[in-house]
């Protein structure tokens, strides 16, 4: 077998019947030569459809007329092809190279990290900008209605006090254009406790408990400045968009295997985003307060007191009981409050 015409066994099917015929394949002058009992066929290599190698599977050769050959011995066939100067597509070579596969995994992880850290926040920001006003309002109204049914009850704060706070918030000079038109809604917080939460349309829910907890109006304004920051940066919408994009990706990746699992990565991502959004809202609040002659430290003071009952183990809010779309209710039991207080008090 040291003659130049290397040969390999194959099964030949003529495409008209399912009958298998044993043949031997060889190469001559860029042509595939097929010889069997009472059968000889030549075909230019270029005219053939050569299936890609796939591990130990047989190689399949399809002729232009639909006839086809099955070559069980891929190794010999590869040797045969190599002599003709045939080269597999790069993707095929990568698929079976340990280095390339490993490199693919590394790049893949890098891509995912990049998409998550850089692309998704920017994309979600752009999409959030484009959400029409009417939709934002509908979503916010629905969220408030849901909160009213499940958590909140009517405020017992005197109307005059509500009016006064509303007026003070409206007269705040806002550092960014376009400015947010905050719309205060007073409610009794119940198990939400001393808290404020912003909905994307500019609705800001203020609980009676928060007003009671504040030592002066500046503290309330500080909290509201933070909430206006959430609205200004469209955090509610961005959070919803980002976490649903992650959920969608997870559902696609885990696919048929588990739809239950798909919620987990999204939930994990939520914590990460809220941390970033808190920081942004605090930066905004600090600038807004500065522009209105209020020290950002005031917000830190009330934050500390808001955290206190949570640390004592009361007023906690059960996870997962949060209505959708997720309101930016980040004042409650957050481990990052300490970090925020340090930031607000400044150097």
């Amino acid at each position, binding site marked *: 077998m040291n003659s130049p015409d290397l040969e390999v066994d194959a099964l030949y099917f003529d495409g008209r019947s399912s009958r*298998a015929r044993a043949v031997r394949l060889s190469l001559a002058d860029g042509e595939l030569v097929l010889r069997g009992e009472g059968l000889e066929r030549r075909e230019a290599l270029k005219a053939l459809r050569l299936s890609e190698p*796939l591990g130990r599977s047989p190689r*399949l050769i399809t002729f232009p007329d639909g006839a086809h050959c099955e070559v069980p011995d891929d190794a010999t066939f590869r040797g045969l092809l190599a002599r003709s100067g045939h080269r597999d597509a790069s*993707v095929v070579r*990568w698929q079976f190279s340990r280095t390339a596969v490993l490199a693919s995994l590394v790049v893949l992880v890098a891509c995912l990290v990049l998409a998550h850290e850089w692309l998704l926040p920017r994309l979600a920001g752009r999409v959030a900008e484009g959400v*029409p006003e009417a939709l934002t309002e509908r979503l916010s109204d629905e969220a408030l209605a849901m909160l009213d049914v499940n958590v909140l009850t009517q405020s017992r704060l005197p109307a005059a006090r509500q009016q006064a706070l509303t007026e003070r918030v409206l007269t705040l000079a806002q550092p960014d254009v376009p400015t947010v038109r905050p719309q205060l809604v007073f409610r009794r917080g119940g198990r939400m406790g001393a808290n404020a939460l912003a909905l994307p349309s500019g609705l800001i829910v203020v609980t009676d408990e928060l007003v009671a907890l504040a030592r002066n109006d500046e503290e309330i304004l500080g909290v509201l400045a933070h909430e206006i920051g959430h609205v200004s940066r469209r955090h509610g919408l961005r959070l919803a968009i980002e976490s649903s994009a992650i959920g969608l990706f997870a559902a696609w990746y885990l696919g048929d295997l*588990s739809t239950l699992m798909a919620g987990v990565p999204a939930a994990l991502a939520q914590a990460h985003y809220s941390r970033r959004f808190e920081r942004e809202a605090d930066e905004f609040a600090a600038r807004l307060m500065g522009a209105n002659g209020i020290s950002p430290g005031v917000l830190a003071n009330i934050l500390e007191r808001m955290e206190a009952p949570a640390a004592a183990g009361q007023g906690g809010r059960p996870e997962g009981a949060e209505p959708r779309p997720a309101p930016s209710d980040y004042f409650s039991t957050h481990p990052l409050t300490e970090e925020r207080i340090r930031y607000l008090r400044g150097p």
Partner: protein
Amino acid sequence: MDQQTNSLPVAFTGQGRDYFGIWAVNLLLTVLTFGIYSAWAKVRRMHFFYRHTRLAGAAFDYHGEPLSILKGRTLAFLMFMGYQISAEAEPMLAALVVVVLMAVMPWLLHRSLCFRMHNSSYRGLRFVFRGSVRQAYVVFLGLPLLIVVSLGLAFPLWIHALKVYQYGSSGFGRSEFQCALSRVEIYRIYLVAGVVAIGVTGAITLLLGLGIAEGLSLDEGAEAVSLMMVLGVVLVVGAVMMLFVGPFVEASVQNAVWGGLSLGQHRFVSVVSGRRLAFITVTNLLGIIFSLGLYRPFAELRLMKYRLESISMLPDGDLDDFVARTEADLAALGEEAAEMFDVDVGL
């Protein structure tokens, strides 16, 4: 050459290591091209599964072209976006889009079945899908509506019609598959599954209810607790259904379908065990979780291998005797249109 009593088992020779490389490289390229490469990736994946599937010493082959798949995917993406955009802008418009999609979907699914069968071959002969478009409307529109009207009671009826349509309307060369699937058998499978599911749900609800009532005096937090309980029950029941009831139903349906299938005088048999399938599903899920997703290609392969190798052909006569359809015959079936595009559906 084959005895009547012979059974020809399907063999699957794919190796996890090879598939892992294909999966990793193709996933990376898909991510880098924002999904466009997924059509090429699908072709490689199909080649891997088809060519590693062997019956009576010959492999299957896949002929789908990436561009046809890309067309179908683009179409599906546009339809999805059309729905999303209209849903955000105008609920009435979205309702209209849904009606249009429902009207077009059966036709698309019919095309998809044609594409898949037309692009599958064995021993050089193509498979063919002969199901009518009219029947597609019955199976993909009429019966699903009946399921809604009958409050789910017609679901097994739908599964029956779907399987008979899918398998019984297929052909291999000039030979035709017949699917003698009994409705009673399918109803029996789903009845058993339904009884088990209801029993399990009841037991879990009872246990959870008792546990929570004991651990908590039902006072202030009752509302939140009941919400969490409902959530817990939903999760546990979902997991039980997915991991245990689902595999048993799948196993029974596959066995029933293949048991009733014949190709000319040849018959088939499938011996999937529900217990084994459940074991594979659970361990696959655990593998994916603990490998942070890297086990996914191995899991897919393992499941496919088990399901394929459970099938055997009971030949009556020679497998060499199948013949191809003539050109005129194929034109009558509208086979040239089968090349056009593929819509991915998890049928």
